């Protein structure tokens, strides 16, 4: 079983540090860049949505694949165009995928790609599917206030499409997961009656994204090293057995601290932040594809993937190419 192909698209409206500086004169963008490692972000235009980007990425992927052979479609998003119906169903029709295909949405953010990978690989391993499309798309940028120093310099909009197949080479898994909803309020759309009141479920209008960056960083530093070690133990591997660590591309600060806490060699920790930003669920597939294009991923390698953040939610898995 393996990841046989990846395509991605970025939001069509580029935004650099100069724009942040022009909009917020008090921001020290050089200091911000040092922390984030992000120079350019890609936001959606008025006519771009999670669905339109997902469709574009999926169509790009399907250029080299017989779409009639697709067995399943998992669509990962937290910013769907519509709550009802599932975007996966609309995407199935828009991309003319078989009516026999399984299709559903998966609501996770930074952990979403690895979550989807675990579900898709399980469906293939137990014989229910021959292959599965895993499509991730987020438009967090639509929910960020122009003067939000925590969110605006980081988040970027993108979609990725990945084909997971039952090929004879490679393997996917095992996986580890962690959930701690006590951290939900540290990265959420607000106002948020569900989180703030516990039971209310009224629909909020014009919510904006809020992040307590310090608390999310602390969660990351406390939990990601712990679950990385747990995953290695579950897979009977050591740090030295891993060729590349592909963590969720949250920010340079996060990757610097994970590298330090796990005592990893810099060259093994993949970084693709500067020109792409934090694209939430798409950071790992984009990083995988960029590493593949650069010739850094070859057959027989062992990769450790780990997504973490909003929820709090964490998922990690081993991929052998």
């Amino acid at each position, binding site marked *: 079983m393996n990841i046989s192909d990846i395509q991605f698209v970025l939001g069509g409206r580029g935004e650099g540090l100069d724009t942040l500086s022009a909009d917020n004169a008090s921001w020290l963008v050089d*200091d911000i860049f040092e922390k984030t490692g992000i120079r350019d972000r890609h936001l959606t235009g008025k006519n771009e949505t999670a669905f339109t980007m997902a469709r574009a990425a999926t169509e790009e992927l399907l250029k080299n694949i017989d779409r009639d052979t697709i067995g399943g479609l998992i669509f990962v998003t937290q910013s769907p165009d519509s709550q009802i119906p599932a975007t996966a169903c609309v995407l199935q029709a828009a991309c003319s995928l078989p009516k026999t295909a399984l299709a559903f949405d998966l609501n996770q953010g930074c952990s979403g790609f690895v979550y989807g990978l675990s579900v898709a690989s399980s469906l293939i391993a137990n014989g229910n599917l021959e292959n599965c499309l895993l499509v991730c798309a987020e438009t967090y940028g639509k929910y960020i206030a122009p003067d939000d*120093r925590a969110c605006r310099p980081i988040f970027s909009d993108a979609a990725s499409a990945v084909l997971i197949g039952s090929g004879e080479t490679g393997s996917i898994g095992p996986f580890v997961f962690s959930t701690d909803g006590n951290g939900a309020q540290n990265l959420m759309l607000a106002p948020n009656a569900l989180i703030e009141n516990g039971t209310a479920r009224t629909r909020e209008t014009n919510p904006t994204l809020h992040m307590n960056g*310090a608390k999310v960083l*602390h969660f990351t530093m406390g939990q990601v090293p712990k679950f990385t070690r747990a995953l290695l133990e579950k897979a009977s591997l050591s740090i030295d057995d891993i060729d590349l660590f592909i963590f969720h591309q949250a920010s340079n600060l996060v990757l610097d601290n994970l590298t330090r806490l796990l005592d990893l060699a810099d060259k093994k920790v993949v970084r693709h932040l500067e020109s792409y930003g934090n694209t939430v669920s798409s950071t790992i597939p984009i990083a995988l594809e960029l590493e593949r294009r650069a010739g850094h991923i070859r057959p027989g390698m062992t990769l450790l993937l780990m997504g973490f953040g909003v929820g709090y939610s964490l998922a990690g898995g081993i991929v052998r190419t």
Partner: protein
Amino acid sequence: MTREEVYATVGQILNIKPEEVTPETGAETSPDWDSLAHINILTALDEKTNGKIAEIDDFMEASSVEKICAAMSQNGLLS
């Protein structure tokens, strides 16, 4: 770590002399103690304790020097 080392670390991040750091120095008393400074304090102390700060569950609730020292003391990180 010693209490003096905590004061020196906080002073370095807030750009003030260690002797000007007091137990009350924190988010409510120092305009320079913003979210970025809090992050810098977290990572600086974590480096100096070999990753032990990151393991303290409610460390980010400690928004003053006094609260940081108390959290570190409760977790055996302050000599």
